[in-house]
């Protein structure tokens, strides 16, 4: 543990040093404009993503289709199943 490299790290820490050196150990550092872009992109994805995905992913179950037990937590599939059933059968 207590060897030379610690000193090098300590040189890079603390308020008196350049923040660029000790900011983080990765490159994920966005500016204000970049955060705004991320916000807009995320909002667009959350608004339009599900609709687009629904168009891309085919869902054509058979008439007596039932959800597998393993998929009982899959509420995306459950909602699609319900909507499909409402539009195709008399009783849900």
């Amino acid at each position, binding site marked *: 543990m207590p060897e*030379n*490299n610690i000193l090098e790290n300590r040189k890079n820490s*603390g308020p008196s040093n350049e923040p660029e050196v000790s900011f*983080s150990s990765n*490159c994920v550092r966005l500016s*204000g404009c970049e955060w705004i872009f991320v916000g807009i992109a*995320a909002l667009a994805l959350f608004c339009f993503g599900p609709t687009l995905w629904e168009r891309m992913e085919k869902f054509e179950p058979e008439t007596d289709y039932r959800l597998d037990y393993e998929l009982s937590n899959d509420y995306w599939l459950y909602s699609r199943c319900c909507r499909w059933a409402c539009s195709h059968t008399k009783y849900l």
Partner: protein
Amino acid sequence: MLFHTWPFALFFIIIYPAYLALKNTRLRVPWLLAASYFFYACFNPLYLILISYSTLLDYTVVMKMDKSARRKMWLFISIVNNLGLLGFFKYGGFVTDNLNYLLSSLGIPYVLPAPGIILPVGISFYVFQSMSYTIDYYRGNIEREMSFIRYATFVSLFPRLVAGPIERAKNLLPQLHKPPRVSIQDVTDGLSLFIVGFFKKVALADYMALYVDRVYGAPGQFQAPALVLATFLFSWQIYFDFSGYTDMARGVARMMGFRLMLNFNNPYLATGLGDFWSRWHISLSSWFKDYVYIPLGGNRKGKFNTYKNMFLTMVISGLWHGAAWTFVIWGAVHALGRFCTRELERTSFYKERVPKVAKQLLVFVFVSFAWIFFRAATISDAWVIVTRIFSSGLANPYCPLLALGLTFAVWLYQFAYESKLRWVLELRYVRIGIVLLVIIYLTVFTPASEKGFIYLQF
């Protein structure tokens, strides 16, 4: 109140605008202190008595040291008091258990009552921070802090209160003296740090914990592949958990204009155990180096004494992590590993012929092996895991591939970060893309988590 929970979000939404409004006034530090004490009281209001006592005592000790010729005596009082607090609250149960075991082995029919004390959250962190202030003052490395309120804020500053980083007075106190400049860049930097930490904790650490907890909960029921994978995954889980906490702490502090030290620097890319300890929990490693290893003599008195000092430092470091023999063994295993790799690193063959990736792999495997003792509930559990890894069958581990895939992706990212390909990661679209992926992953795949941080128990 943990960083990744809604109560903290509410707390921060309330205190932050007021902090920004007060940051250029005399009320800034008292406000920070009030917020920090409220934050700590949310865990248990009784903890406030303890932190106030520790703060008051060290503040008074340094004041007395300033005016007295018997500085050493005051330092001694501070150290005994701090270690006494830690010993009573953290090691009371451990000592009682061991004494009872000793009494029963000697055939003495007497059982000491269990102290039944709950370990106060963060005590190991703020006691060490407070102790470093008195030692640094004694050594003449820092000026005495005149304001009690400012000193109390230094000890209790809420982003780093419960699990570090263990800041030094010379880094943090000057930041409390002058009004901070909180720029837009500070806020966005803080957000960047926070989102990475949040992802590490909620999406990675807590997800890996599902598999690790299952295997380590009943190690006798699993065979070698599951035990090996759970051990490797625990290595990453504890890294994601603790470095995630630190990232969030640094992010919150950054938004308030404070710069806390880097605590983790991609430790699993270390090429030696010395290198590993300069990348893992840096604030604690450097604390032990400055206040234990060097005062013991460091590497100044020959090879035997160097290794003895290393061994003692590592064992004490192990004991700091928890009051159990498993942590002592963990420290001792690291010390023994350090002896071997230190000698190995001096050979020209290892230095020049062994590829860097092989060295990194060797360090990772060794560190993961040592984590077995850290994670196992008891020594016998650790022994079961070690023996079963080498002697049991090869049954399907049923380890989720997603956990392995995510770990590999993070390793690849870190590997690229420390290679010549770093420029790719610095590209604007890559950075934005990663943050977008992180947000989507957190929103779509990650359930709400209120699982505590591993290091809070220390």
